[in-house]
């Protein structure tokens, strides 16, 4: 998995890109208003959210049992189950299965989990060409770029850029940036690959423990091509994606499309169980992937990040994400959910700035279809971040602040000192340039002069 760099530095660079901000704003505004409209239609939306949360919490509490049950169910239905501790193990299994069938090419369903483990580059190293078939994923793959949004991976690209890319790669004769022509070019390119592919690779939105059923939710139908046409299908499933039984899907198949694309019902919902004679792949493998998930599970406060159903509503509403875009988060999981999931998957010490990439405005919690209290987890992870990567200067500043709040006399004294300091710098006017860490404040805003008399001084003068 990628290791993110400093969020503030990456965000600073992204913020300078005016086109990116305009693209993002337009795209997220559209999805948001669609989502709001269809969510308002349901009078039981909040009960649905509560149900989603309850099912997920139950699954995590008994994950060991559900995983074994799922394994038995898949095998009973004629599938093979593999367990992978990390991305390297998972990729090796995919490569082994592919090579065992003499194939050197796989077609892929859009899958965050396989992006997380950088499956494509691992397969390339084994001599296997992995072809992304989701329209946006294909764009990114052709350009050597990577996803900046959970659901709309190429949200940072516009039509003209895509036309130019296709002209350079899969459709030399294309001249128009009309969406229909762009899609037609991709269709022509992909159709040939669907028909010749012998191995398909997917992730999954849900795995059903008591039947062994897998569920993939997508909009284009290209995913279904990958899960039905090849002889062999390999699914990489994060261990947190289980639900106990089929009726549980009823809750999530209402929550997910409304939160994700603002649709009442998802266009292509594929469910399959093991193998069926003369229909679809005749060999099916599922790889149960940990890759840090049991570490997240061990965090009592942070584990609810594993409830996530990857709808991306929190990205679209987030005032930080909608300005910086996804790449600033340095992970395939960007936005508020990424800020709590990535540091837990790879260790807070490897992403110490991500828990701070939020103003704690709470908009993400409000829209989350499974009620993940993202602000609470962020605050929890901040304490861990300070513990493993806190700076001495900040620690000192916080201790000084703690001391000055430690009693009313100290506080009144500190108020006087701050007032005198500010006055000596600015002579009673608003501060426009302050030294030290406060320079980051005055780079963009003034600091009004501290009041000549604090409230407590006024009170003791007037009222006692």
């Amino acid at each position, binding site marked *: 998995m990628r290791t993110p760099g400093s969020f503030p530095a990456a965000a600073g660079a992204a913020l300078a890109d005016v086109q990116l901000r305009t693209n993002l704003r337009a795209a997220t505004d559209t999805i948001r208003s669609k989502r709001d409209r269809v969510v308002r239609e349901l009078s039981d939306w909040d009960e649905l959210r509560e149900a989603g949360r309850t099912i997920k919490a139950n699954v995590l509490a008994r994950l060991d049992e559900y995983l074994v049950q799922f394994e038995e169910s898949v095998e009973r239905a004629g599938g093979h189950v593999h367990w992978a501790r990390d991305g390297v193990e998972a990729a090796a299994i995919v490569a082994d299965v592919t090579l065992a069938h003499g194939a050197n090419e796989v077609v892929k369903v859009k899958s965050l989990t396989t992006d997380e483990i950088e499956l494509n580059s691992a397969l390339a190293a084994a001599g296997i060409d992995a072809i992304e078939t989701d329209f946006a994923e294909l764009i990114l793959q052709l350009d050597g770029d990577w996803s900046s949004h959970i659901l709309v991976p190429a949200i940072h690209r516009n039509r003209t850029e895509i036309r130019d890319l296709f002209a350079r790669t899969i459709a030399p004769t294309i001249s128009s940036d009309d969406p229909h022509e762009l899609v037609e070019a991709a269709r022509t390119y992909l159709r040939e690959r669907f028909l010749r592919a012998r191995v398909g690779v997917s992730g999954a939105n849900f795995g059903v423990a008591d039947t062994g059923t897998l569920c993939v939710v997508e909009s284009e139908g290209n995913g279904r091509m990958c899960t039905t046409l090849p002889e062999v299908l390999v699914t990489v499933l994060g261990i947190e994606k289980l639900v106990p039984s089929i009726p549980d899907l009823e809750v999530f198949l209402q929550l997910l499309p409304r939160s994700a694309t603002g649709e009442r019902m998802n266009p292509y919902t594929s469910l399959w169980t093991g193998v069926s004679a003369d229909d679809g792949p005749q060999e099916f493998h599922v790889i149960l992937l940990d890759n840090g998930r049991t570490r997240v599970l061990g965090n009592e406060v942070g584990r609810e990040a594993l409830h996530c159903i990857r709808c991306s509503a929190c990205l679209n509403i987030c005032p930080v994400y909608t300005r910086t875009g996804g790449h600033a988060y340095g992970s395939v999981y960007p936005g508020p959910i990424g800020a709590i999931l990535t540091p837990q998957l790879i260790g807070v010490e490897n992403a110490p700035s991500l828990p701070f990439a939020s103003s704690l405005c*709470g*908009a993400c919690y409000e829209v989350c279809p499974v009620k993940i209290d993202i602000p609470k987890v962020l605050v929890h992870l901040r304490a861990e971040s300070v513990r493993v990567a806190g700076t001495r200067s900040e620690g000192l500043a916080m*201790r000084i602040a703690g001391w000055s709040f430690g009693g*009313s006399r100290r506080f009144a004294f500190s108020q006087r000192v701050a007032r005198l300091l500010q006055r000596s710098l600015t002579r009673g006017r608003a501060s426009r340039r302050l030294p030290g860490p406060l320079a*980051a404040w005055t780079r963009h*805003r003034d600091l009004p002069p*501290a009041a000549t008399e604090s409230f407590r001084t006024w009170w003791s003068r007037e009222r006692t």
Partner: protein
Amino acid sequence: MVIALFITCVTDTMFPGAGRATVEVLERLGHEVVFVPEQTCCGQMHLNSGYRKQARSLARSLVRTFADYDVIVAPSASCVGTIRESYAELLGGPNPLASRMFELSELLVHHLGVEDVGAAFPHRVAYHPTCHSLRVLRVGDAPLRLLRAVRGLELVEPDRANECCGFGGTFSIKNADTSAAMLADKLDSIEGSGAEVCVALDGSCLLHIGGGLSRRGSQVRSLHLAEVLASR
């Protein structure tokens, strides 16, 4: 009714006028306001920045400070939000302040049943619903009800009113560029609304918005809700 005032560290230091206005409004309504001088800070900055030890000690001391009061008011939604939502977990036990600490507008409208406080303020006002009043305390339209009852006041609604101004405590320092981008959009929408005054019920957000307006040389002023309610 005896009402204890939790002034909050930011209001005490930067906006004592909002504190005096809070006292004035409550006294005008016939209540007795008490100020306990031992109070300092609720610990929000420490808690949200990852310094739990200091936050816990500040929380303990605030609980002690207000032990004798049944109704406590603070002119700040984010401080009340911290106290109400985080103290139980922080203190590792019951939160004695949870049911006794109120933000000013929720105290007036939801608990005292007052909307008209007898104020007059003949200006065009944009109300900025601060994140913690909206999404943590869920004060709903309580501030708007109070503002609508103010004589001469004309309310205007900025675009994307519910979006964060970008303050976020130390976020404004640690992620200054992102915070500034959020602030710029917020200021555009406030100025675009035609307001003369931007009103909110959190001193910290007003520090941010006011600091941004001042840097722009804007004609729009920022004021705390209490200051509008105290005007006549």
